[in-house]
């Protein structure tokens, strides 16, 4: 449905130097799917989305929607943003304060190229307001809405134009934590029900994991990995992705032997470990292990199986639904996230087990 290939953008900073924002971006979004651009600020995710919207003009590349190019540096095509018929929800919501709720949502229908009569406009506006649960607020001044309501109105306005593509620019970042979680569910339900092809930009990895069909993790203007939320979390392709999405322990290691396809034995400061790798590594090369804290199993009695180590509890932090243990194994410190029922005291020794399937081996940067 949306196809972006070899997209490059750049801008001039205040000193007139050219800064490359997004580089060689290639993404493919199938119809009806929610695709997330995830990354820290300044990684180029917003620029990429704005290029798709037409609010920014890339320097090269090609963007097609349903096979029709909206931008192509080769043929010089650039469709103006007001001609693209993409709905967009902005980070600030951009609700026009001089209009009421109805007028805000009706605006796209009044200014578009398709001419609708008043009755049709009213019908469609009320329909989208109902979808987002604002049907009883139609006459309210836009400035009198709460943050969550503004967010819904921004969504209703984007939906009113029956867009081919919905663009969401950090739509939840201005809400407080509780509301954010509720809106996350609501957004997901709406997107799935309406089957709208959606691009979602966020720096919040939990939002990305919760909502997306597919995620592109970006940093420094480039896409570092594209995959399903589970892929991104469980099979990070590189150090950046492992580090940015979720918490992880990194352990330096050297490959000792290949045991089976995708299974290796490596040597670390903590001892010899069995690990999983989705890439090929030659014996003797340096690699990096990534182990999620929740995959570091702790127990006071020595368990049976592979990758069992002995350590001492260095520090612990009680966080309610779980406890974070800082465990020292040799010279190496591991973070383990365990059930709060484990009550081993600081300074006591503890058994550590890491499931080889959860011990992911990636190339060091």
């Amino acid at each position, binding site marked *: 449905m949306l196809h972006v290939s070899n997209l490059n953008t750049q801008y001039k900073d205040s000193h007139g130097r050219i800064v490359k924002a997004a580089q060689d971006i290639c993404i493919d979004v199938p119809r009806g799917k929610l695709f997330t651009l995830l990354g820290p600020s300044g990684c180029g995710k917003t620029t990429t989305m704005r290029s798709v919207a037409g609010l920014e003009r890339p320097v090269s590349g090609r963007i097609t929607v349903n096979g029709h190019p909206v931008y192509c540096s080769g043929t010089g095509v650039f469709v103006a*943003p007001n*001609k693209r018929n993409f709905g*967009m929800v902005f980070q*600030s919501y*951009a609700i026009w304060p001089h209009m009421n709720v109805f007028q805000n949502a009706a605006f796209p229908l009044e*200014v578009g190229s398709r001419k609708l009569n008043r009755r049709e406009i009213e019908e469609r506006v009320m329909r989208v307001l109902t979808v987002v649960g604002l049907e009883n607020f139609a006459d309210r001044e836009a400035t009198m809405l709460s943050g969550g309501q503004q967010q819904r109105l921004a969504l209703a306005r*984007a939906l009113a*134009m029956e867009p081919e593509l919905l663009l969401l620019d950090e739509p939840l970042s201005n809400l407080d934590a509780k509301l954010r979680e509720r809106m996350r569910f609501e957004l997901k339900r709406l997107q799935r029900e309406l089957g709208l092809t959606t691009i979602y930009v966020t720096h919040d990895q939990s939002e990305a994991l919760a909502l997306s069909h597919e995620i592109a993790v970006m940093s420094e203007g480039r896409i570092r990995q594209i995959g399903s939320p589970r892929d991104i979390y469980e099979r990070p392709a590189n150090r950046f992705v492992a580090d940015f999405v979720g918490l992880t322990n990194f352990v330096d290691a050297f490959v000792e032997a290949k045991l089976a396809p995708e299974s290796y034995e490596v040597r670390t400061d903590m001892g010899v470990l069995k690990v999983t790798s989705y890439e090929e590594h030659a014996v003797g090369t340096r690699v990096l292990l990534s182990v999620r804290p929740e995959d570091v199993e702790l127990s006071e009695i020595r368990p049976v199986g592979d990758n069992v180590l002995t350590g001492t509890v260095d520090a612990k932090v009680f966080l309610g639904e779980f406890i974070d243990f800082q465990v020292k194994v040799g010279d190496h410190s591991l973070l383990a996230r365990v059930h709060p029922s484990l009550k081993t005291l600081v300074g006591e020794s503890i058994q550590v087990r890491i499931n080889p399937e959860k011990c992911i081996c990636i190339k060091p940067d």
Partner: protein
Amino acid sequence: MRHLNTQTMVIGACLLAVAYLALMPLGFLFWQSFLTPDSADAASRFTLDNYATAYGSIETLHLMGNSLLFASGTAAFAFAVGGALAWMNERTNTPFKRLFFALSIIPLIIPGIMFTISWILLGSPKIGLINMLLQNWFSTDHVFVNVYSMWGMIWVEGLHYSPMAFLMMTAAFRSMDPSLEESALMSGASVHQIFWRVTVKLTWPAIFASMLILFVRAIESFEVPALLGIPVGTQVLTSAIYQAVHQYPSQVGLASSYGTTLLLITTAGIYMQSRLTGKGSKYATVTGKGFRPRVVDLGAWRYITAAVFMLYFVMIVLLPFLVLLWSSLQRYYSVPSMDALRNVSLDAYRFLWDHPSIGNSVLNSLILAFASATIVMLLTSVICWIVIKTKLPGRWLLDNIASLPLVFPGLVLGLAVMVFYLNFNIGVYGTLWIMLIVYVTRFMPYGMRYNGTSMLQIHKELEESAQMSGASWGTMFWRILLPLLKPGLLSGWIYVFIVSIRELSASILLYSPGNEVIAIVIWELWENGQFVELSALGVMFILTLLILVMLAQYVGRRFGVKEI
């Protein structure tokens, strides 16, 4: 493609209009100052004679000396008065502090020409009320005060500009972090030491910037030098320009060279001032946030400061207005007495009502004020959009060009426009159109300021979401930006309306019979010695301006920027 064209056309037209208005006449004036007059028997040719005449004579030296003395004297006096009042208001527990802020609107309400005339009625050696009352009391012929002198000029102009100094120094005092002074206090400094070594040092850029602005305003002011200086031969640059144009044969070349000189002085002054107050200066600690500073307890002295303030209020508002009111109620101008009180009449107001040319001038003023306010605000809204919201290369230049008229003295702008349209006759000379051109040029910077402040508060995404909704540029501008700009647009509109309606110094060289404006009629009545009628017109003028200013303040509060 059609929509793209509207955008290109509107932006292009606004760019051309601004560049044309701000650059053409002054550029032409500059060029003209190097030419001999174009007459029937000789074409104009290049010459340095104008400058030679202007700078060759001892008279000019005298003129420059007078101008500098007048401007620096005014700046110093206005600053001393305004700065002291600002300190009293911001840093002491003087009673009636709220009244102080009424000061900020006084210069808007009482135009320079009315203020000057009322001080003539108060302080002239022959008819001045102060002299006559004192002479009555002490039964002498001694002239106690004489406004027809350099010191009189400085007194009147300085008083008139003191509220401006008050406002600027108030802002400076207010934006100073009190902890800077408190830490000096904790270091063991005495109040005296804190004042000289911290307060004054920190406000120094503001002090200097205020002095520069006051100097520039004084050197380009026309009313006081014309009304008080010309009768006794105390010439400054502005009055010399006026006389050079008005003598026969008129010496436009000479006026141009004086004008160019004046323009250079004001440009230098404003440039230095903007450098001082600009961003990135090392005095950044004293800009930005509003603080509530420490207040000095004056003890019993606070009644003295309150009395000083009252006296000031009497001199700047009460006396000028009352003297006008008094003289407007007389048949013939006379000193207040029981006798005169019996002669009170409304004849003068009746005269104004019956006189068609006065009604006509009011209409002219209204038309001009309405048109210039509307054009200025719409034009600068587009310019501000380009400057603030786009990444168009060279937009800083556009910003500077649109703000350039700030340095044009009204009289010099009037002269430049006059000379320009006399040479390029497109039929506007001698009509209201030429006045409109001057007003739009002169007040463009105010439009830039009001619209710019509002434009900065409009989030870029409000505009982008309209674009994403499918709106063309024109629709976006009309339906999203202009309504969002409304607070600034409205206050700016009223402000430009007010300053247009009081405009004198640029109009004075451009009016012709039939298209006088109110300020010009006042000027003419003064020249004819019709003090009584003039006073009546002045009283009504001031009351109208008062209503307009209050309306402006109401609008400013009512449509305070809505934030979402």
